[in-house]
């Protein structure tokens, strides 16, 4: 089983230096890419079927193709790595950032070249101090070896790469809020259209890609689209970093072929549930995805299959709900996070999420009222896609709406018994 993204990562050790990375075959894709026209790089990535690992799963090659190219394009153009990773339960980008910073930098160079960008940024989560330190070191090495800077490897292509530490807000991960933050403005999303590809950072054409997405690029260039597709066990190409947290025996993160099943992840890789705990459900892709239940254990963890099961692959890092954890408490915890992280721009999210949080809290504390569930449901509907300014709120209510669907009796019991049945256990 090939694990291109993690093959250089040595747990609990310093990442590879530029020399060791080169020895391991690193930076070859830069040479390869710079020898062809940018458009060809785009075409290879498009043919590879790579889908964005930031959550929405949009085709990366397609996204790039919207960037105006050639001499008429407005400049400078920007390439931005989204390494804000604040999704609860998600820590996949961190592994790549800390474990193999040169791989990311290599991906940045090739991606930026593909869209003819002259400036790149890595927008990194505030708390990722170690990753920031290692990236800074790696960038320094890359400059010293002419992978970055003026006339890379003697070609006419030049690229400047900088790290921007986020001020620490979940909304900064939303790509347009990220761009505002990068411009030094308040991190609120922007209206789309215009899309960043056309009018992004400082109004210039910009691509924002997730860190894991970018890390895939060198391997696609080196080995070709077909190799990349063959890595997968499903329609969606490549490998994926999957994570499992919750009361399983071995919570961790693994690089596996796209399309492994939920069951394989939990039972084989995570070693099954801890003794005395039974599996009740899972949110498969970070906090802002719908629950899957024991009925869905054989669902393949790829974009289309998970969507068909009524959820989203999201970040591919799952949180398991067990029978000794109150689902209302579980969801309440998540909604509390989202309410706090709402940017405050639009009414339904700004004033709606805190209020959802309050109802959930009162249900959990035994003060729920008949009718509360219906209000929660109605509100989940109001916070659906299109009703809010960005995708934070629709994502936020995904675990709640599915919890009501699958664990309705638990909600009802809380209200009827005026207490949390799990509290006395």
């Amino acid at each position: 089983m090939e694990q291109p993204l993690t093959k250089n990562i040595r747990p609990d050790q310093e990442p590879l230096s530029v020399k060791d990375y080169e020895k391991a075959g690193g930076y070859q894709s830069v040479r390869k890419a710079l020898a062809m026209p940018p458009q060809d790089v785009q075409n290879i990535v498009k043919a590879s079927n790579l889908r964005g690992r930031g959550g929405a799963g949009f085709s990366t090659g397609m996204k790039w193709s919207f960037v105006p190219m050639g001499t008429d394009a407005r400049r400078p153009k920007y390439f931005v790595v989204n390494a804000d990773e604040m999704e609860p339960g998600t820590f996949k980008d961190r592994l790549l950032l800390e474990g193999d910073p040169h791989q990311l930098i290599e991906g940045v160079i090739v991606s930026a070249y593909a869209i003819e960008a002259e400036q790149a940024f890595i927008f990194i989560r505030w708390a990722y101090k170690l990753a920031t330190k290692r990236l800074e070191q790696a960038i320094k090495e890359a400059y010293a070896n002419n992978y970055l800077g003026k006339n890379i490897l003697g070609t006419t292509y030049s690229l400047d790469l900088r790290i921007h530490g986020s001020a620490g807000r979940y909304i900064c991960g939303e790509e347009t809020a990220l761009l505002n933050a990068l411009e030094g403005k308040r991190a609120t999303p922007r209206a789309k259209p215009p899309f960043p590809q056309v009018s992004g950072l400082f109004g210039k054409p910009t691509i924002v890609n997730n860190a894991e997405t970018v890390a895939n690029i060198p391997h696609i260039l080196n080995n070709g689209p077909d190799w990349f597709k063959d890595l997968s066990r499903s329609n969606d190409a490549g490998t994926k970093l999957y994570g499992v947290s919750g009361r399983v025996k071995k919570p961790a993160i693994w690089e596996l072929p796209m399309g492994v099943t939920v069951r394989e992840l939990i039972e084989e890789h995570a070693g099954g549930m801890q003794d005395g705990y039974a599996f009740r459900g899972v949110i498969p892709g970070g906090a802002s995805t719908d629950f899957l239940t024991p009925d869905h254990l054989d669902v393949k963890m790829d974009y289309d299959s998970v969507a068909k099961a009524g959820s989203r692959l999201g970040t591919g890092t799952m949180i398991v709900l067990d029978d000794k954890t109150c689902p209302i408490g579980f969801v309440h915890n998540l909604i509390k996070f989202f309410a706090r992280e709402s940017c405050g721009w639009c009414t339904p999210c700004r004033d709606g999420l805190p209020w959802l949080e309050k109802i959930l809290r009162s249900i959990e504390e035994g003060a729920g009222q008949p009718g509360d569930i219906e209000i929660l449901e109605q509100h989940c509907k109001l916070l659906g896609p299109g009703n809010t300014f960005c995708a934070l709120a629709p994502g936020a209510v995904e675990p709640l709406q599915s919890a009501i669907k699958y664990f309705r009796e638990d909600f009802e019991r809380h209200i009827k018994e005026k207490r949390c049945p799990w509290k006395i256990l």
Partner: protein
Amino acid sequence: MPNMTVTVDGKKIEVPMGSTILEACTAAGSRVPTLCHDNKLHPFGACRICLVEVEGTPRKFTPSCTTPATDNMVVKTTSPGLIEARRMVLELLLIKHPLDCPVCDKAGECSLQDLVHEYGLGPSRFDPEKGYLPPDYESAIIERNISRCILCGKCVRICDEQNAVGEWAFTRRGTRARISTDFDRPLDCEFCGECVEICPVGALTTRQFKYKARSWNLEGTASVCNYCGCGCGVSYETREGRIMRVGPARSNYLCTKGRFGWDAVHHAERLTTPKMRVNGELVDCTWDEALSIIATNLKVIKSRHGAEKIGGLGSVRTTNEDSYVFQKFLRTVVETNNIDTLARLKTPKGLNTTFFSGELNKMASHEVILVLDKNVGEINPLTGIEIVRAVNKKDRKLILVNDEFNKFNKIATVVLPTSTVNALENLVKALSSGAGSEESKRAAAMLKAAKNVAIIVPAQLSDNEFTLIRDLAGKLPEVTYYPLVRRSNFQGSLDMGVMPSYYPGYRKIDETSTADFAGLWNAVLPETTGMNAVEMIKAITQGKLAALYIMGDDPAGSDPGLKGILQKLEFLVVQDIFLTETAKLAHVVLPAASSTEKSGTFTNLERRLQQVNKAEEPIGESRPDWEIIQDIAKKMGGSMKYGSTRDILAEIRSVVPAYKDLAFGACWAREKSPLAGMADDLSLTSDSIMKQEVITAERLLFSSGMTITRSHEIGTIRHYKIEV
């Protein structure tokens, strides 16, 4: 632009490409509720009340204000689901809202109140959370009541997108988000009140209107601001015949003077009775006494010294009708051409001969705007606003000449950091030889590439600058000038012939024109042209002017040096709304009605004929200027008998060709002036009088001659201004 077809609520309509769904709905006559949208601003999409259903989209609802319409789109603006969603938005907005409508000045014109009423919300299902934040009384003029704010961001955007000030911003996030100034300090801005005007709820209100009236008890009178040459349309909102508040007509814009400075006319020091000098003291008298003294004295002086020893200084703040009657009185009754306004000293050379202003609302039709007066936003605030709008809404390019820093620097494409004369020289050089600094070259290239250019002409010009502007314009394909004009009816006073060498309509005084006007007016007219304002002042010192009639101007207030000179007059009549420094020297003082208390017309800097309408009764015994003058004329044997300002305007239309068929609201065409393109200079210069710029407040923006100093509201600004 090509059109597209959109079906709204079953109605098929054509809208231009690029329209939003909201625009299509409006065009189709379907009303979609909005809270955060305003046509003046970029779409924002925050309130989510404007949701509609679009057929064939995966999303259930779509915000109409931010979403572009597409060809053959089918839109539904109402459905049970939409109503439910909108009710929910309102319900959420009310969670924290204090619902203190009974004591909120916005009640009755509050969008939130109206929508809650329309959507029939009953008791809330949500526990109210009236997180009471105390109102903020720290700022001048404007009060902030955060608890009422619905975070629509309109205040933030109008101040930034339209004003280029950017005083408001959001702070914090989630449910704690709120609007704030830098570090919550008191406002330190232009105090235009546009943010108050646009706030859909009672979160921003004014101290001036606080608890003054319920909005539904107000009656509006459309009129014109009397502070600067822009002549913004105002609506005087009265309750029981007294102005309570002033807003913009046609929701365009008002600056702080127009919106708040009107309260000067309610000042306790308004003149309410005529006064005459008895034993060296000014004492109240009756109208009959005052007018008889004036008539008698003018007759005596005329017969003793000759009419050429009598002069009149007119006003640039009174109506066309007042000015017309004033000059006609002096010409036909007193029989002198010693008629002028001092404001001609503060006027750009070339105004009304070379420089005819373009229309302000067409500023954005110019590809490049060249600002030659950094104080444009302070002298003519609306002109400044139109520049910002052109740049921010239509992406026009701005070349700014500014050797300091102000808000226009923030939006300028190129800044030429030097004096106007240097900048002009550099631009002319760069345009002809391609030489010069990087900035001049960039600016010149922009000017050259532009199809049309707007040039903001400084409020005052040296001869050199004047020539340079003409040289520059000569090198450009199409130029529209926007000369700055300080006072409200300066243009009108010129049009009406308040000048010693021109009859109304810029007819140069000569034998033919004198014969014509003698016929028109059925009067004997003086044979020679008169003295201009500078000459009259000089004549007083030389004993060549014995009597002066000043209508609505305060020379001694503007230039204290004139005090001693005016005291030399044998007879001085001052007609004003206040006992000004000049009035204090007069032998007779006449109380005039203010522009809020009378009707007539103004002609603004665009040469737009505008109706001034009476909103309140004249205070005390004060009367409109023309009525007073007509009565004196009668007492002196003149034959004026106008029944109303309409009669006067009818006569103006018959005498001034440019006004003949001029509709209200229209601008007269430059071709209508006999002086268009001529070398005549209608500005005056003097090296002794009115040399100082009179700034009656901390900023030129808050200053507008002497009247504004009586505004209580504007007076509060300086106390709160803090230096950053």
